[in-house]
């Protein structure tokens, strides 16, 4: 498919750029690590294992949320630096392919951070997953995508705004709070095994629906945003 090949082109370019500079991933890693450390200092996970388990879902997602927000802010500035964005606007390939490529690239970065983070998190917080750990393999990517797809979109939307860095959290947070809620609940549910599997399943299904709905709208509206002027 032609569209797919455009997406791949964009994705490859973004990965290569990141590889050359490693801006986003390292920034995110630093932030998330520091956060884990802060919480484990603040909270003495060894002392209160059950409480730890209760807050760790929240800690994980808040960390990822903030970390990815910093990275997302960066991801479009690169396009803006030498006004490459104008070259992108003039290119005849569909604009949404650019969006999808970038969202996928961001997704990969955040997933890498998660992959590094997960073991550290388990060790520092002394976690034993009481529920079905495999469900996390569904929840993490779904939740991450929810963050990333909207984040990428709104970072692009705020691109030419006067106070870009501030604007992204302002828009993104209220919009994605339901998703944050879903993923925190689902994650905590798995970690503590206190949630009825039926509820758990419903959180996950809702998260998936959220992802599908927002991905669709983002793809549909991206061209409008890119050429808004």
């Amino acid at each position, binding site marked *: 498919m*032609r569209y797919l*090949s*455009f997406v791949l*082109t964009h994705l490859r*370019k973004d990965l*290569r*750029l990141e590889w*050359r*500079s490693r801006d986003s991933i390292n920034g995110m890693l630093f932030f998330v690590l520091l956060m884990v450390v802060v919480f484990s200092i603040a909270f003495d996970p060894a002392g209160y294992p059950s409480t730890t388990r209760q807050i760790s879902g929240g800690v994980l997602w808040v960390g990822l949320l903030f970390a990815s927000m910093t990275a997302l802010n960066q991801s479009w500035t*690169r396009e803006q*630096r*030498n*006004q*490459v964005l*104008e*070259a*992108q*606007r*003039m*290119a*005849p*390939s569909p604009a949404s392919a650019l969006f999808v490529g970038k969202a996928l690239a961001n997704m990969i970065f955040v997933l890498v951070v998660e992959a590094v983070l997960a073991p550290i998190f388990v060790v520092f917080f002394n976690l034993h997953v009481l529920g079905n750990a495999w469900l996390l393999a569904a929840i993490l990517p779904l939740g991450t995508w929810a963050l990333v797809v909207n984040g990428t979109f709104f970072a692009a939307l705020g691109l030419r705004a006067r106070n870009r860095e501030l604007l992204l959290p302002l828009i993104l947070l209220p919009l994605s709070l339901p998703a944050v809620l879903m993923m925190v609940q689902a994650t905590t549910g798995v970690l503590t095994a206190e949630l009825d599997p039926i509820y758990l399943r419903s959180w996950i299904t809702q998260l998936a629906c959220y992802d599908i709905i927002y991905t669709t709208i983002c793809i549909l509206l991206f061209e409008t945003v890119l*050429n808004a*002027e």
Partner: protein
Amino acid sequence: MSTATPIRDQALSVTAASLESVSKIYGAFAALRNVTAAFPAGSSTVILGENGAGKSTLLRTVAGLISPTRGRATAFGDLPLRQRHRIAYMSHSTMLYDELTAMENLSYFATLHRGEGCACVGSPEMALRAVGLDPALPRPVGQYSQGMRQRASLARVLQTDPELLLLDEPFSNLDVSSAGHLVDLLADFRTWPVPGGGRRTLILTTHQASLAEPLADRTLIMRQGQVIDLVTGSHG
């Protein structure tokens, strides 16, 4: 798109781009004031004017990157952005990624242009050679000298084989011999056949009028956001 070919073939005198009483207002400042201009297909126009006259703004409007506050800008009788596969635009800045080499940059943009009605894309290597850069240079564009950046930027637009080519000060930062070379290249470019018929149109701004003279079928002179003079005459 393919149905359009015969029409284009017949009407060679059609306008490639036109502005109809276009104004562009930033806040309380008018960068373009009621500009009306037509650029016939096959023509080559040099835009002259002092700093801040609105030359770049005019080019960007034709490219579709700016939508006029008032008036209408068209390219090939359509919204410029909708005809973007036939237009190429080079600006003051490189429009290239600093971290990638010229070759990587160009192949990337070439891929974006493939398909979509213009299978006719030149190769990045050829474009780089044409502007006098070595395609195998391992340095990223961010480490190029100013003139080399300008060339890489030129190669980016040339490789897409556009029908309407918009160049914003292509000669600035080029050394004398390359500038002369570029003029030849552009003169040559105008003669390249267009796959679907039609002719190549060139619009460029510059402050080195003498250099651009061989290219100037028409000279447009701007001042304070207005076109104050249009000199037609082949090769001044």
